[in-house]
C-alpha cells in the first residue's frame, strides 16, 4: 500500500491510500480523515473520506497548497501509528429482494445490460458462482457491510462487504447507465453495494429495494430528524431479507412515524476482525440483536 498525493486544482489535495480496494486501505482513509479533522488546520473547508482514498478542500488564500501538502504528509505518519479501531454503529436495513419496482426498471433498460435474458440478480448470481437467486440473497445478506464512502449524491452509501476477498460479490456496471433508478434501490457495481438515496440515473446492478428512507431534506422522518442523511463512513450495515407484507407494513409505519430503526453503537477492531471474520461478524450480530 503506497500513498499517493495529487493536487486537485488549487483548492483540493487528493490522497490515494491504495489503488485497489481493501479493508486496510479503507481504514487508512478513515484514520487519515479523523487525524485531519483533529488537526483543525486553518483554511480546510471539506474533509471527505472515500473507499481507498480521501480528499481535502481548502482555501489557498488561507493556506498555501504546498503547506497543506506538508501538513497532510505529517499527518499520514502519525495516522499510520493509530490503532485500526473505530467507534461505529451497526444498522439493520430490511430489503425486499427481487421487488416489482426495480424489476420493472431493469426490464425497461434491458438492452443496456450485459445479459438481456436474465435479471440483475440472476446474472450476478451466475457470474459469482452462487446458487441462483436464493444463493445470492444468502451471500448478500449473510455477512454485514461497511459504509466505505458516502456520496455521489446526497446521503448515498457505498458498501463493502466484510468478508474475504474471494467471497466478495463482484459485478460490472450496466453497459450504458440507466436514466432511471427507483429511490431506495439496493444496487451493486464492482465490489461495492449501494443504496440509491434519490431517484435518478445509475449504472449499478439492481437487486432489491428497502422501505427505510435514508435521506430526507425536510427532516420529517423520525430517524432523520437529527440530520437529513442516515449514513456516515464507518457505519456497518446488515441487510435483513423481508417479504412483500413486511415491506408494505414498514412503509406504512415510516409514514405514520412509528418505524424504529434498529441501530446499536459498537466498537470495531480490524485486527480482531481479521483473525476470525465470521466469528467477529457473529459477535456484531449479537450486539445488534441485544444478545
Amino acid at each position, binding site marked *: 500500500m503506497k500513498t499517493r498525493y495529487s493536487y486537485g486544482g488549487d483548492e483540493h489535495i487528493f490522497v490515494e491510500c491504495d*489503488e485497489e480496494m481493501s479493508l486496510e486501505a479503507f481504514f487508512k482513509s478513515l484514520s487519515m480523515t479523523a487525524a485531519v479533522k483533529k488537526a483543525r488546520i486553518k483554511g480546510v473547508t471539506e474533509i471527505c473520506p472515500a*473507499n481507498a482514498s480521501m480528499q481535502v478542500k481548502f482555501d489557498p488564500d488561507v493556506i498555501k497548497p504546498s503547506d497543506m501538502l506538508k501538513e497532510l504528509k505529517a499527518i499520514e505518519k502519525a495516522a499510520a501509528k493509530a490503532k485500526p479501531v473505530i467507534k461505529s454503529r451497526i444498522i439493520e436495513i430490511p430489503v425486499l429482494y427481487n421487488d416489482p419496482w426495480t424489476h420493472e426498471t431493469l426490464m425497461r433498460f434491458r438492452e443496456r445490460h450485459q445479459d438481456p435474458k436474465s435479471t440483475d440478480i440472476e446474472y450476478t448470481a451466475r457470474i459469482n458462482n452462487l446458487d441462483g437467486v436464493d444463493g445470492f440473497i444468502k451471500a448478500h445478506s449473510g455477512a454485514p457491510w461497511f459504509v466505505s464512502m458516502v456520496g455521489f449524491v*446526497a446521503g448515498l452509501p457505498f458498501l463493502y462487504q466484510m468478508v474475504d476477498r474471494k467471497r466478495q460479490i463482484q459485478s460490472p456496471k450496466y453497459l450504458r447507465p440507466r436514466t432511471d433508478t427507483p429511490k431506495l434501490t439496493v444496487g451493486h457495481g464492482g465490489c461495492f453495494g449501494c443504496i440509491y438515496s434519490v431517484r435518478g440515473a445509475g449504472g449499478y446492478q439492481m437487486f432489491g429495494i428497502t422501505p427505510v428512507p435514508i435521506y430526507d431534506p425536510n427532516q420529517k422522518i423520525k430517524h432523520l430528524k437529527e440530520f437529513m442523511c442516515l449514513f456516515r463512513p464507518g457505519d456497518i450495515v446488515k441487510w435483513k431479507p423481508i417479504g412483500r407484507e413486511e415491506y408494505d407494513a414498514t412503509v406504512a409505519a415510516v409514514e405514520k412515524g412509528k418505524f424504529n430503526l434498529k441501530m446499536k453503537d459498537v466498537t470495531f477492531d480490524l485486527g480482531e476482525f481479521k483473525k476470525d471474520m465470521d466469528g467477529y461478524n457473529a459477535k456484531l450480530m449479537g450486539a445488534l440483536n441485544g444478545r
Partner: protein
Amino acid sequence: MAVKVIKPGLSTTVQDLGRPGYYHIGIPLSGGMDRLALKAANLLVGNKEGAAVLEAVFMGPELQFTDDATVAVTGAELPPKVNGEARETWTSFKVKKGQTLSFDFLKKGARAYIAISGGIDVPVVLGSRSTYTLGALGGFKGRKLEAGDKLPVGKGRGAKEGRSIPEKLRRAPGMPAELRMLPGLYWHRITAEAGKHFFTDTWKVAPEADRIGYRFRGGRPLEFVPREQPFGAGSDPSNIVDACYPYGSIQVPGGTEPIVLHRDAVSGGGYFMVGTVISADMDLIGQLQPHTPARFVEVTMAQALKARRDQAKLYDKLKASL
C-alpha cells in the same frame, strides 16, 4: 415584499455563495456557477455580496413585484425589461410595485444573475439558501421556479438606480473559451501522446451541460496506459476504485468525452480524472453555451495561484468602481 413568478424561464433557481461543509456526505457546494457575476449583481443593488439571487439559464423569467425594489442583472447578456421597457445589464434599476420584470432573448453567455434589493429570503438550509435540485434541498422548495410561485424577498433599502459596472470589469469567456487546468489526479493513466492532444484539440460544449457538470466532445479519444485493473475498480480502463471528485475535476468516461464537474457536483464515483480546472476559471464555465468551442490550457500551481490573485484583484476593482 414578494415577487410573483408569472413565467419561470427555462431553469431559474435561487442561489447564493453556496453550502460548504457537507461534501463528505454527497451534498455539494451549490451556489451561483458564475460567482463573480452573482456578487456584482448584489453589490449593484446594495445587498451583501453573498445574498441570495436568481440564476436564470438561457432564458429569463417573468416576475411581478408586490413592492418597490432595486434590481440588477449581471452575467449573461440577457436584456431586462420593466413593463416592456428596456433596461441595461450590469446596471441597477428600479422596479415599482405592480410592475413586471421580463427579459429579451439571450445575446451572450449562459447564466444571468438577477439580484433584488433585500435578497431572496427563502429559508437557510445547512447554512445556505442555494438550491440543490438533485437532492430537493434549499432554495424555493428545493426546486427550480414554477409559474405561480411567490418568492419572499428580504427587507432592504436598495441602492439608487444607474449604478453600473464598467465593461472592462465584466469577465466573460473568450472564443474559443480557454479553460486553464492543472494536470494531476489520474493523469498517469493516459499515454504521453493522449496527454498532448488533450490540450491541442479543440473541444465543443455538449448539450449535456448543467450545474452538475459540463460535458465536452469533439477531441480525439484518450489512449490509456495498459494495466491490470486494480481490485474493486471495474473492468473499463477508465474505471478507478470509486473516489472523491474535486470541484472542477475533469473525468473522461471511456476516454471519450471530458466532463468538468461544477457547483452541484456528484461528490465521488468510479471514473478517472485527468486534472482539475483552476478555481479562477470556474466562473467562465457557467457562461458557456452548448456548441461553444473550448480548449484546455495546461498551467502550473504557481500560475493557478497567480490567476486566483488576478481574479481577486478584478473583484476589488469592481467593488471600487461602485
